[in-house]
């Protein structure tokens, strides 16, 4: 038997595998769908440690801004199709450019709207130590009262009467009555492959509730204040006119 023959057989085998693959697996045409999160203050792109004024007239700067995005659902309403990305978790971090872009492999031809959770579902809060962006080492987990910090905003305001004039908002809580995971729905006028999602940080302080930084500069546990903040920031997302 010569080497040539072996190769001939090998090609034959590969050929069969390819045929079988086509017969048994429906290969769809996957597409990359890109989500870009852009944090803003009003109409300005957020820059860390730059001084802004919120809609309550308070000056402030932000040193850290991070939030989890999970349970993304892409929908094509025209064709009544949807695709769920239930076990994918993303941590959007203002200090890490790459984290602001989420790539999803989708077989939908057109995406008309998107649903996602800002935060982590209750199930992942009770399953022990996770990996990747859910690793407690990311600093988005409370170790003394188990649970994820769904969103974190830290910074300073000269109006705050606390050490370093600092505010520190760690929003979390997943149990019934304390849940801070919020679902966001956004609709697009026309379908496209890349969607920019604007997040106006001003909504943290003034949206459903008025939460002046001077009075609410510290939130480090689940409870009413955390839920108010969650309600507020869940309204911060929008898509630019497309």
């Amino acid at each position, binding site marked *: *038997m010569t080497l040539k*023959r*072996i190769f001939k*057989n*090998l090609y*034959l*085998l590969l050929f069969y595998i390819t045929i079988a693959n086509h017969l048994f697996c429906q290969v769809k045409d996957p597409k990359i769908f890109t989500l870009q999160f852009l944090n803003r203050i009003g109409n300005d792109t957020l820059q860390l440690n730059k001084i802004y004024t919120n809609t309550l007239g308070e000056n402030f700067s932000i040193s850290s801004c991070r939030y989890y995005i999970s349970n993304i659902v892409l929908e094509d309403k025209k064709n009544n199709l949807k695709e769920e990305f239930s076990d994918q978790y993303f941590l959007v971090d203002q200090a890490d450019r790459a984290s602001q872009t989420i790539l999803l492999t989708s077989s939908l031809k057109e995406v008309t709207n998107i649903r996602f959770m800002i935060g982590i579902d209750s199930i992942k*809060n*009770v*399953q*022990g*130590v*996770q*990996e990747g962006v859910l*690793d*407690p*080492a990311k600093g988005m*987990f409370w*170790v*003394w*009262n*188990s*649970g994820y910090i769904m969103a974190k905003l830290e910074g300073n305001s000269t109006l705050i009467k606390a050490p370093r004039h600092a505010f520190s908002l760690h929003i979390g809580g997943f*149990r019934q009555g*304390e849940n801070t995971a919020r679902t966001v729905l956004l609709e697009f006028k026309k379908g496209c492959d890349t969607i920019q999602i604007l997040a106006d940080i001003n909504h943290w302080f003034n949206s459903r509730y008025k939460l002046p930084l001077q009075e609410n500069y510290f939130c480090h*546990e*689940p*409870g009413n204040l955390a839920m108010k903040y969650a309600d507020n920031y869940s309204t911060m997302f929008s898509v630019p006119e497309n």
Partner: protein
Amino acid sequence: MKKTSIIFIILSVFLAFISWVNNQYPKTHPLQFVIPKGWPAPLYDFKQNPLTEEGFILGRKLFYDGRLSKDGNFSCASCHQQFAAFATYDHALSHGFSNSFTFRNAPGLFNLAWQNDFMWDGGINHLDLQPLAPLTDPHEMGENIDSVLYKIRKDTTYKRMFADAFGKKEINTQLVTKALSQFLLMLISADSKYDRVMQGKDSFNLPQKLGYEIFQKKCISCHAPPFFTDFSYRNTGLSVDDYLKDYGRMRITHKRVDSLKFRVPSLRNVQQTFPYAHDGRFGYLDAVLEHYRSCVIHSVTTDSLLENGIPLSNFEIGQIKAFLYTLTDSSFLKNPLFSPPDEKRMIPLPDAQQHALK
């Protein structure tokens, strides 16, 4: 032509099978988790973290390694000593990083596979998560997770042990805590005199027998066998320490009904786990029993079972103590498997692993 292609196909199928078998059975040695007779099924999900000899040995090394703390002085074992059933012997509060005291009394560690929530207030909802709390507490080990991972990743012994235990080159928070859990899960205490008596292999002497009868009448509704706790949270009518201001479970649930409630501690090995109560305020069993007899403070959340305290005569207290001492499991307290690893033994000989954990 036909012959060769048949041979080729058989060969490739055979090779595929070999690699499949290899993947199915990695080169770890499974460790048997033996449920003591008559005990319920454990609550820990072993499917997510199958016990292996390699994982256990790694977890033990981590448990006894001071480098998990900021200054290298405080291993898990510095507050969880085997001879004290993995509580801190003779310390109301344990010593932590930078000459500080912890806020609560270190509980004994055993039978953790049957426990769902951890800490005196039940704030931690998974055994794998538990080590992260003392690790990062500034009054305990004072470290941060990234820094611990950095130290572990630099150590060649750990690199090898992690690869052996988990078959990956990666070392991350999840694997560190899973390894620690593997060690902790094996800490089963079920071989006290009480257990032997229940199995008909031993018998109580008279004070122990009388104590057992009193215990069944007056203590068992909270300290229920086989764990000698019902894992509930109760206010036993202790006064609030005006410095610690510890309101227990309410800190976690933010509910007033949970004010001053703490986990019912297991009474297994109670002889070794003194001082008692969440802040270690009782140095001796007599002090605990005296509290129940005459010092229970009545408030809205005080447990209804303690409405009248627990009426006990001096004689009864003596008998109850005699019974409680039968819960000491000396084979657990001295089991060399749970002892600090001898560095010589840490390099397993070809056949050492086969015998080490039997």
